[in-house]
């Protein structure tokens, strides 16, 4: 490779040996070295400069150095030189700095440039030392991009990310955390992370950290578990937390990922409850279906024996008992079918005349035992139509009324049921009160559970009526309450009077 000797324009070098040593150095040094004269014309251009810029020395020697510069340096370089000569103001001389340069092929790259001034035979010259740092710049750029990407991920992840230091002070807290806890980053940074915890974690957390650092006993690090968090508004919620330990420049940090699992917990609870109900349901149905059947089979044995012994009255009595058992069975099966239907039924909202529903229901229940001895008082004060799911509403009304009829106190000469309807703050209210047998205080909390019978000997019930009613009220977005003041059992149903 032809090279232009560095000293080609330095006639004053006195030692030949010295000159050739210097040349060897310049030819092998990794940095590009360029000398220019006071007009900016290139005087020498070493092999590394060739490699960096892509020019052969003969293409650049004698030309203005600004050919190696992109705009704005290209335009301004003559000015820099001029300025220096006029004012002595050194912009770049004696200092290293990062500038952009242009290769022969037009590409622009970053380089580190050091410029020194020297005087040779009274002529001011400048030596530029050049290091191509485009690789390093590229790496820096990639690092920055990577960091931005990571930041975007951290900011946009649905999980909360929190980093604390060794003493529990919060250092990082991403956007998701703001949503989860309600505190902004500014409100938590530098504070102890226990502010995000309810008791007993609040009190104990410093201890956990201390304990871990002293003994290495991991309470949560590397394990991950369900804990409780506390929001800014004071409410507590379940969260999944996993913590890992990170060491950065000799500092120990703990990085936690938190996920609000309130919704998941709610769903789990709902599924658990549904499962428990299903289990209870299948057990009870099999048991309750079987028991009148088994009774009937036993009773048939008794009847058969009675017939064989010619005891007609005894046989007839047995048959009467079988009838009773089978009627119970029939009632149970009927309720189970209704329940299944109610569970599955999708129904549209429609305008319902409440008074008509109540009267129709009473009409339907007329055949019930002791219906006629019950005084029925209607106090209808809800004058508009109720927008609701009619079948559900009818089920509620019928169940309340039939319970009042079924469980009247036959020893009371003035048994009554009072039905009132009215409107209260945009809600429809239905109350059904009776002076019947009531429900023992101790059993009232089981009132709306499946298969609960409160008067098993008075009348056979499947134990599903109130349960179905409660489910229906839930579907309609309402509430049902029971109250037993002054020997009166009162069910109060509150429903939205229209779709809200």
């Amino acid at each position, binding site marked *: 490779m032809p090279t232009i000797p560095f000293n080609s324009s330095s006639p004053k070098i006195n030692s030949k040996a010295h000159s050739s040593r210097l040349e060897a150095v310049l030819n092998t040094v990794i940095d590009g070295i360029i000398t220019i004269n006071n007009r900016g014309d290139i005087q020498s251009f070493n092999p590394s400069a060739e490699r960096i810029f892509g020019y052969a020395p003969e293409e650049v020697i004698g030309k203005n150095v600004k050919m190696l510069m992109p705009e704005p340096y290209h335009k301004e370089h003559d000015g820099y030189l001029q300025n220096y000569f006029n004012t002595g103001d050194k912009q770049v001389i004696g200092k290293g700095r990062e500038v952009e340069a242009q290769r022969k092929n037009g590409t622009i790259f970053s380089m580190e440039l050091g410029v020194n001034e020297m005087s040779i035979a009274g002529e001011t010259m400048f030596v530029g030392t050049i290091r191509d740092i485009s690789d390093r710049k590229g790496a820096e750029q990639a690092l920055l991009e990577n960091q931005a990407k990571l930041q975007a991920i951290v900011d946009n992840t649905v999980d909360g990310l929190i980093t604390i230091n060794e003493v529990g002070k919060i250092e990082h807290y991403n956007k998701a955390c703001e949503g989860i806890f309600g505190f902004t980053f500014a409100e938590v940074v530098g504070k102890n992370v226990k502010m995000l915890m309810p008791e007993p974690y609040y009190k104990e957390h410093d201890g956990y950290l201390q304990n871990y650092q002293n003994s290495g006993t991991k309470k949560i690090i590397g394990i991950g578990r369900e804990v409780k968090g506390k929001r800014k508004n004071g409410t507590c919620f379940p969260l999944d937390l996993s913590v890992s330990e990170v060491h950065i420049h000799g500092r120990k940090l703990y990085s936690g990922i938190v996920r609000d699992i309130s919704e998941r917990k709610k769903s789990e609870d709902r599924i658990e409850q549904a499962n428990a109900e299903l289990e209870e349901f299948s*057990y009870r149905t099999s*048991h*309750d279906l*079987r*028991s009148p059947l*088994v*009774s009937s089979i*036993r*009773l048939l*044995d*008794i009847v058969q024996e009675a017939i064989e012994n010619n005891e007609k009255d005894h046989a007839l009595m*047995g048959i009467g*008992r079988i009838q*009773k*058992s089978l009627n119970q069975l029939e009632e149970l099966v009927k309720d189970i079918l209704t329940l299944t239907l109610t569970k599955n039924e999708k129904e549209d909202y429609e305008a319902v005349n409440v008074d008509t529903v109540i009267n129709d229901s009473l009409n339907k229940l007329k055949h019930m035992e002791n219906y006629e001895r019950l005084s029925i008082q209607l106090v209808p004060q809800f004058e508009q139509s109720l927008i609701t799911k009619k079948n559900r509403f009818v089920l509620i009304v019928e169940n309340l009324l039939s319970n009042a009829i079924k469980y009247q106190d036959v020893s009371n000469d003035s048994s009554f049921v009072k039905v009132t309807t009215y409107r209260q703050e945009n809600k429809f209210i239905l109350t059904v009160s009776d002076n019947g047998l009531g429900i023992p205080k101790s059993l009232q909390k089981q009132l709306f559970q499946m298969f609960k*019978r409160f008067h*098993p*000997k008075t009348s056979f019930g499947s134990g599903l009526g109130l349960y179905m009613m409660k489910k229906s009220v839930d579907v309609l977005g309402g509430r049902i309450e029971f109250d037993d003041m002054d020997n009166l059992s009162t069910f109060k149903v509150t429903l939205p009077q229209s779709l809200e």
Partner: protein
Amino acid sequence: MPTSSVLVVEDSEIDQVIAKYMFNKFDENLEVLQAFDGVEALDILKGTQPQPIFIFLDINMPRMNGHDFLKAYESSDLNSTSIVMLTSSCQPEEKDKCLAYNSVKRYLTKPLEIADLEGLFKTS
């Protein structure tokens, strides 16, 4: 020889009839005493000598239910007969609660089977 007896405390007439039938089938010499609630049961026990070999007790009854009967029975001077719960409730909590009484030896769920009686009388 004094007749051995069992006492069935049960408010359902059908269940009483069936229980009596099952006991007769199991051992026709066994006398079956019937009480329709806890109060009646205590009365019968006070007037019966010797005491029945078993008391079969339902839980859900008017006037005095099974639990109240057990409390009254265990704090009375009658307390000597083994009690067998005979109920439709198969909830484990109920079972545990009943078996916690000293006098309760077994917890049977209805319907009563001959095999239950065989097991019971064999081990007693």
